[in-house]
């Protein structure tokens, strides 16, 4: 009896913080999304009215919301496979028994992950500069004409994807490397005895053994990439021609620039439901695929 009381003393502070500052706001977001909470309600709560699903209906008729959604999907559909491919390639290289200075390379490739997103986004904005940025300069040396990376609506999102892959690939690389290292060596030894080529070993041992980890990495990366915000905020401010407005960027402007807090909550909830649905779908697919 006394022990249970003590246990509660240990968990209560943390649970209280999480309940009050996480669970309550999430539930309140749902409630708020059904109201017309705006700058007038901010000044005087009596201006607050219930509008049911009005915010949601309104959003579905807002072209910019759809564009933000499309931009975010573009970022995820191109960015995630690219990022995981780079992570996987780097992990395979690092895992090779021929590597010298493995620790050094791992640290170097991982370094962008720990850097401050805003700071390195500022750096890349200058690297992407169409007139005197290093990227165009380097491309010019091999005969590729300059590209207005962040100023051209067709190139701004690809530029952000390149930046995001550079910033993030080290994270999944480390997880995939741990996965590679956990494959029991006897599997490869047996295959070598049977005379299997390196490619066949990769195809029939490495890939199947790593598949569950790749599936998990994929789910986490998709969920993370759907939360795109700081990159467009710092590098493009959503432009040019709103080609890099993401769902969260849209939510931020809707809520904290125009103070349409009811509508912003609806945006947040739609994003959450979408992330939830995509995660559930991927979990189901991966279970179906790797079921014994």
């Amino acid at each position, binding site marked *: 009896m006394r022990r249970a009381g003590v246990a509660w003393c240990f968990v209560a502070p943390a649970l209280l913080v999480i309940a009050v500052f996480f669970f309550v706001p999430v539930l309140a977001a749902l409630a708020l999304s059904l109201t017309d909470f705006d700058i007038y309600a901010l000044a005087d709560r009596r201006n607050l009215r219930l509008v049911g699903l009005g915010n949601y209906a309104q959003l579905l008729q807002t072209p910019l919301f759809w564009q933000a959604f499309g931009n975010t999907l573009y970022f995820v559909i191109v960015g995630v496979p690219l990022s995981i491919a780079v992570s996987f390639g780097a992990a395979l290289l690092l895992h090779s028994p021929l590597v010298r200075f493995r620790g050094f390379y791992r640290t170097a490739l991982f370094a962008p992950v720990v850097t401050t997103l805003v700071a390195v986004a500022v750096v890349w904005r*200058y690297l992407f500069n169409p007139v005197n940025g290093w990227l165009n300069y380097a491309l010019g040396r091999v005969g590729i004409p300059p590209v207005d990376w962040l100023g051209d609506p067709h190139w701004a999102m690809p530029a952000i994807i390149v930046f995001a892959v550079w910033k993030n690939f080290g994270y999944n690389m480390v997880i995939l490397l741990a996965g590679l290292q956990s494959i029991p060596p006897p599997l490869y030894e047996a295959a070598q005895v049977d005379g299997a080529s390196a490619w066949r070993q990769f195809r029939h041992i490495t890939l199947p053994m790593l598949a569950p980890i790749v599936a998990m990495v994929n789910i986490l990366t998709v969920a993370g990439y759907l939360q795109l915000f700081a990159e467009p905020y710092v590098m493009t401010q959503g432009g040019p021609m709103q080609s890099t407005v993401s769902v969260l960027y849209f939510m931020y402007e809707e809520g904290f620039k125009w103070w349409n807090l009811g509508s912003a909550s609806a945006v947040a909830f739609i994003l959450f439901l979408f992330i939830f649905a995509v995660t559930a779908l991927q979990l189901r697919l991966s279970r179906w695929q790797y079921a014994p």
Partner: protein
Amino acid sequence: MRWPAGFLVNGLLLGAAAVTIAPLAWMLSVSLMAPGEATAPTPPLLPARLTLENYTELFARAGMGRSVLNSVVLTTAVTLLSLLFNVAAGYAFAKLRFAGRDRLFRLLLVALVIPAQVGMVPLFLMLKHLGLVNSYGGVIVPAMASIFGIFLVRQYALSIPDDLLEAARLDGASELRIFRSVVVPLLGPIIVTLAVFTSLGTWNDFMWPLIVLNDRELYTLPVALASLSREHVQDTELMMAGSVLTTLPVLLVFLLLQRFYIQGLVLGSVKE
């Protein structure tokens, strides 16, 4: 056959590492150039003459000294408080018995899929009501505990042998004493891991401080840097100095403690 393969693997890694590090090296190099030097038609790689002019400018005129202070104070406060709360809770979820423990923990795990941004608008209104918007408290209070932190500590604490705790109890030690003198030392490595995770995460965090802090005097480094970069678009060298100032501390912490960081990353990602 072996020699060319080794050459290829090491060559590819060297190239990949060079490309990965290049933007960071360029940032450092340009931050030491004289104003205007980096925007020459043929952009130079190294400064003609090393100068700290941009850094003095940051502190003297751009007010970044105050932002450094804000970032240091907030990161320290969040890290210490959340360690205290998360370690206590994570230990209790692993080793102490109370009604509904496992159900509660499962609920927390399910909630991990909810992105923090979902509740940001109501959280802002709540903190405004409490008078915490535009103050350190607005950043610290919601970050005092995290589901991820509790989870990380619990997974590690599961490996503490129950016999050890029972023996201490038989010796008449109080639960608080057991926590302080037996549990915390055993949790040492995971505490360091969580401390590194939390401090880097808090230092680098952008969206929430951007929302909750309005006065320039309270801006953290990322928020101040983002705002500075909108005003000083042309000042490449100044902006690079600001980027170095913001990101160098976290890079150093990572280099010193990367063993713990990587361990936590791998441990935390196998939660499914």
